[in-house]
């Protein structure tokens, strides 16, 4: 029997029963039902990883310092603005969690956190080795003290190595990883400064890598009966996303020669339609044939014997003709025409257009969550549907400290939460 079945027996935090799961139900319980996660992390990578676990059903206790997760102070804010509950960044990466506020300057608070970690299955953190040592949460010590615990750290440069304590931001991490250079190189070798991709996609890479590694460690714990330390450097997670091109640059003598088409790759790229941009890429010959068919089989695409000429041989003249054709139509017209002929394409959609697309709506990729202070809004799900497990009813990000009293009470005895608050242990 795994530790899963006996964790948190007396604290009232876990709803998971000690009985083995019943395999006869059509849909089983949520993926991580009964799992307990304690998170000490801020901004994007760590909270995103913990959110993935929380949204999959893990009871996730987010520890915040008295000043709150830094993302609570990050623009932009929904109304009321600015307010510690209304940052879109805060709201996006903290669904389905509970917030507990502890003043970790206080040694009783540190002991309380230690108790919470002792009873958790997973401890997610983004603190550097020096910060963890100060909090009495050194990974090696935790590993020794709690052999079943999965200690999951996502830090900028990893738990070991001389860069572990470097100051960094999302910008400098994206550039230190090669990720920003990768975005620029994809546009052609010599077209300007390396460039971060939009939104917070590079930071999310660190969160994804950590969540994936936690799931691996959970499998290992089921099979081998022990926890472990998971060390993810977010910069290494980012650089892995470009591992193909980084390898080619390093091992094969520099970047490949740039291909002849405009706006992107050897086999197509960005086109300007009458109402915005569209991406079309046709590396396979049947896809190229589909693009030409969509255009009404123009004669320039065929040789004297009536055979379709390879895209790479046609070069820029073909690009000009395709651009001209696309410019006379809307994104949707070009998109549908190409896809009907098996040519891969996608309109460059605004986020609002993504949310309103029929495809995303039919698949219920977004679910609407209510929040006591901000308007209800649509939050993206995980990009996969498990047909055997029940989906979790997610909740919006927690109000600051809203679960402090409930979750800390059993650990404060003989103090009451009010006494502990006056003593500065909790907030």
């Amino acid at each position, binding site marked *: 029997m795994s530790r899963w079945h006996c964790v948190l027996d007396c604290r009232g935090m876990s709803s998971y029963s000690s009985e083995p799961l019943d395999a006869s139900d059509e849909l089983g319980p949520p993926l991580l039902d009964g799992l307990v996660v304690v998170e000490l992390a801020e901004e994007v990578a760590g909270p995103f990883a913990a959110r*993935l676990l929380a949204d999959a059903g893990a009871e996730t206790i987010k520890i915040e310092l008295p000043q709150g997760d830094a993302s609570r102070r990050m623009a932009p804010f929904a109304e009321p603005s600015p307010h510690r509950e209304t940052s879109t960044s805060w709201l996006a990466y903290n669904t389905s969690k509970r917030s507990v506020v502890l003043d970790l300057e206080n040694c009783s608070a540190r002991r309380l956190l230690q108790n919470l970690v002792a009873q958790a299955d997973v401890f997610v953190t983004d603190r550097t080795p020096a910060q963890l040592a100060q909090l009495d949460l050194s990974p090696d010590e935790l*590993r020794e003290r709690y052999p079943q615990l999965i200690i999951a750290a996502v830090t900028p440069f990893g738990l070991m190595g001389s860069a572990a304590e470097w100051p960094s931001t999302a910008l400098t*991490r994206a550039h230190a990883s090669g990720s920003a250079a990768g975005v620029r190189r994809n546009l052609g070798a010599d077209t300007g400064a390396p460039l971060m991709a939009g939104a917070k996609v590079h930071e999310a890479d660190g969160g994804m890598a950590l969540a994936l590694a936690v799931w691996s460690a959970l499998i290992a714990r089921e099979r081998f009966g*022990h926890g*472990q330390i998971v060390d*993810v450097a977010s910069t290494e997670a980012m650089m892995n996303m470009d591992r193909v091109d980084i390898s080619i640059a390093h091992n094969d003598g520099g970047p490949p020669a740039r291909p002849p088409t405009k706006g992107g790759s050897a086999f197509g790229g960005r086109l300007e339609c009458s109402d915005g941009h569209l991406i079309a*890429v046709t590396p396979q010959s049947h896809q190229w044939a589909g693009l030409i068919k969509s255009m009404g089989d123009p004669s320039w695409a065929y040789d004297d014997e009536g055979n379709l000429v390879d895209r790479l041989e046609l070069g820029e003249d073909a690009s000009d003709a395709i651009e001209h054709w696309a410019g006379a139509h809307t994104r949707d017209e070009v998109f549908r025409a190409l896809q009907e002929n098996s040519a891969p*394409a996608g309109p*460059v*959609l605004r986020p609002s257009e993504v949310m309103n697309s029929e495809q995303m709506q039919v698949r219920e990729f977004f679910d609407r969550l209510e929040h006591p202070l901000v308007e209800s809004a649509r939050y993206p799900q995980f990009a996969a549907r498990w047909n055997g497990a029940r989906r979790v009813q997610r909740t919006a990000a927690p109000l600051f400290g809203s679960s402090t009293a409930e979750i800390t009470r059993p650990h404060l005895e003989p103090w009451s939460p009010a006494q502990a608050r006056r003593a500065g242990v909790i907030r």
Partner: protein
Amino acid sequence: MTTTSNGQNGHNGLHGLLRAADRPGPLSGKRIIDFTWAWAGPYGAMQLALLGAELIKIESATRIDHSRQRSLAMGSFKGGVNQAPMFNEVNLNKYSIQLNLKMEGAKQVIRDLARTADGAIDNFRPGILEKLGLGYDDLRQFNPEIVMVSASALGATGPERNYTGYAPTFAALSGLSYLSGEPQEPPVMMGGSIDLRAGTTAAMAMLAGFHYHARTGRGQFIDASSSEAIGMHIAEEFLHVDLLGSDGERIGNGHRAYAPHDVFRCASMRAPEAYTDEHKGARSGWIAIACRSDDEWASLCECSGLDHLKEDPRFRTGLKRWKHRAELKPMIEAWTSEQSAVETAEALRAVGVPAAASVWGSDIHHSENFRERGGAIRVRPPETHLRQVLPPPWKLSETPAEIVSPAPRLGEDTDYVLGRMLGYDRDTIDALAREGALE
């Protein structure tokens, strides 16, 4: 056919030896049928192989994985099918078996594999495997506990389920492309990194399925969408729409509140003495610098010798620096353009200013932190040269992820899989070959 007559080669031996001699990975002993091709699916499957699973890649000479032949960035690859660097990077640690899935004998091989497999992963258009009689509902007849991930461009349901795509279209359809680029320029086309993000999502979906199986004994089908995979990476942009009533905008290397927050051109990547004959890194350099506070700004001014800017009323507060960031940029760049990126970033970090050289390729491999954390892994694909590849993106203290072999040659392990794994005798294998099932 490229099978060997004795069913043995170095690739297989290496696999067994290294796994047996070392600590197991989280997925050691798990077998997964890998139907994927191109980049996203193979990288998804490869991560499971790095974690110790036995990945049996189903290939065919009648339908060669096009990452053995071409890539969006490079165009056509001039080498042979066993030499393509892009294929190697997303198929490490795997076995390759050649099967023409149109032939009944090949389908029977898949059914036999399904009996002994823990998982299966594909990135076909929805319905393709079903047409071959090899979809989830078919495979679970032979193994009700199998976990199967099907990762398609837009998912297995909905009006666009049959649409096809590649990395750049996933980014376009998810909203990421629109948000990527400089404010005054068109949205950028994203590249292969998008595939690897989609692959990461699919791998996580499979791991969640395996973990669930370990707890409940249940197999299941998992429908993954590569476009949604990119959408889930940019969650807050959707909240921007519903809560602020508008779409976010492109900000390039900029920030909504901080300045300076940008990349600046440098004279070189490294100081002159770093450039030896063997040096393979970049000659030109860029440095990323971000100041989040007045203290960091003051430190930047002092470190750069631009002390006078500290007193300049245009730059005295964070808000003022942000408003005047366009004026600030050339002043900072006038300084950086006479410096080397790596050493300047080091000096700035030493005084607490977040800064980094913007690296690529060999400069990543040369970085001290990269080497301290284990550095590159050397692999030697049998038909090409020694390669240094990036290690797995996670370090697990007790059940490490490992790279133990290069990507397989096309059909390299056909005999091994049929003979050793499935126990087919020589006559059976020869009969399959004769009927064309192993093409």
